[in-house]
């Protein structure tokens, strides 16, 4: 006799959950995703809800669905990248879209073509969505002014990296559940970090308390006033890492951008390691369940020690997996907005 087991879906056993009114997905209006400053808490919840479905697709044997079949997504990167680029490309492919990936260093850009002309060309090639990374802050905003094609910002200069902000928050939420009163410490080069900026926007009105911890030279001038002016009262600044880590739930060191260290922001890398490296000893000050995240790529032995990066509290690999799900959700939502 065949033994057949009936398992109830965990979510459905709480019948009340399903009867909640559906999220107002029809109100999703972002044709372009440029930063998280114009995302409402409901919209962020919607992205996460859809990402949950995408995580399930990623766990299948056949991880491809036909949702965006016949759509073309161009990935235009003016800066080097491994994970973001691969992540967007796979997200598009798992949803059944065709992708064309362009590397500025090997495109007509080297012949002097302007950003707008390159993007216009892609638009003329009937591309449906352009994912762009550019070293200049604001580049995708200029692109939006000149194009009808949907634009997703995959990082612009020191300004914004919305998909990273979303995947970080999603990873934290999946791990910690209730975010109210939890403490996130972001450590390092805040000045040059688009990841930190998008995280600050994304984590507003989640109940999270964000502590930016860095030497004074790594905190933008006028940051406290700017936070105040934008109503970002969930953020505080702290220069001493040991103080900042006190009871922290999430510890997120940023990459020390060695290519930007010629201008004397720190006196030496060795000193930076001594004062700001996240290592096992320092991590003891954080909450016992604290999780460690890193937007990558890591400089192991500089901002994060090897043992911490690969310890049980490290969610760095989950971040990468969640990143694909978040980008699938964004591509899905953006594709669903009507053409103008």
């Amino acid at each position: 006799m065949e033994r057949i087991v009936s398992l109830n879906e965990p979510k459905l056993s709480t019948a009340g959950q399903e009867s909640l009114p559906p999220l107002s997905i029809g109100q999703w209006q972002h044709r372009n995703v440029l930063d998280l400053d114009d995302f409402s808490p409901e919209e962020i919840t919607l992205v996460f809800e859809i990402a949950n479905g995408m995580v399930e697709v990623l766990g299948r044997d056949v991880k491809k669905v036909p949702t965006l079949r016949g759509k073309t997504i161009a990935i235009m990167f003016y800066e080097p990248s491994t994970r973001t680029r691969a992540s967007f490309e796979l997200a598009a492919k798992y949803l059944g879209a065709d992708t064309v990936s362009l590397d500025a260093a090997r495109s007509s850009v080297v012949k002097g073509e302007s950003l707008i002309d390159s993007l216009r060309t892609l638009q003329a090639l009937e591309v449906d969505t352009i994912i762009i990374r550019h070293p200049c802050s604001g580049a995708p905003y200029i692109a939006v002014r000149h194009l009808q094609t949907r634009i997703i910002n995959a990082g612009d200069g020191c300004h914004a990296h919305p998909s990273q902000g979303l995947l970080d928050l999603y990873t934290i939420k999946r791990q910690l559940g209730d975010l109210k009163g939890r403490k996130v410490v972001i450590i390092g080069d805040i000045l040059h970090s688009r990841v930190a900026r998008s995280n600050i926007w994304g984590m507003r009105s989640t109940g999270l308390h964000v502590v930016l911890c860095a030497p004074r030279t790594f905190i933008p001038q006028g940051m406290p006033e700017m936070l105040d002016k934008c109503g970002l009262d969930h953020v505080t600044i702290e220069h001493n890492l040991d103080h900042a880590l006190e009871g922290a739930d999430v510890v997120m060191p940023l990459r020390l951008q060695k290519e930007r260290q010629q201008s004397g922001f720190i006196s030496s890398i060795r000193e930076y390691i001594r004062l700001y490296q996240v290592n096992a000893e320092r991590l003891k000050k954080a909450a016992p369940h604290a999780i460690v995240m890193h937007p990558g790529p890591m400089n192991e032995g500089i901002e994060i020690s090897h043992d911490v990066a690969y310890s049980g509290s490290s969610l760095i690999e989950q971040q990468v997996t969640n990143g694909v799900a978040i980008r699938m959700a964004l591509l899905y939502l953006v594709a669903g907005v009507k053409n103008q």
Partner: protein
Amino acid sequence: MAEKILLNSSDIERALVRIAHEILEHNKGAKSIAFVGIKTRGVPLAQRLAKIIRTMEQVDIPVGSLDITLYRDDVTSLGFKHVVQQTYLPFDISNKQVILVDDVFYTGRSIRAALDALMDLGRPQTIQLAVLIDRGHRELPIRADFVGKNIPTAHNEEIKVFLSEVDAVDKVAVRRLDGENSEPK
């Protein structure tokens, strides 16, 4: 617009009991049967069918849930309104007699999407379709194997199935949609 009740709780129960009998008859028993409910209300219907068969045959039939949002054909054309949910199949559907369960059978497009989704998840021996209500107006050459009740309708009517697991009450109601919105759901 007032709604008219077409089926009450015991009508629904009787229809499901009959469908359960037909499924067992058609498949010559409950061996290698699996239920897959289409979200949202196909899932509790599938669970009820499994429960009825358990009391009749003393066999536990696996029940899964299928979200078809990613397989719909209107994602990018209409300005869609669907939140992606999770598919949950705690068993391998390959070589099973998979019985898809949905509440209302209408244009056939959801079933087409469900068939595509199932094909991506395995290779069932057969796929059969059980629905509580068949309201007609097919747009694709798809038919149901097991039907609770045939209810002829007009396009500007809406059939709504309420199930206690989801809606706190068991009933099937019809109501006329006034004016502009007669577009199929």
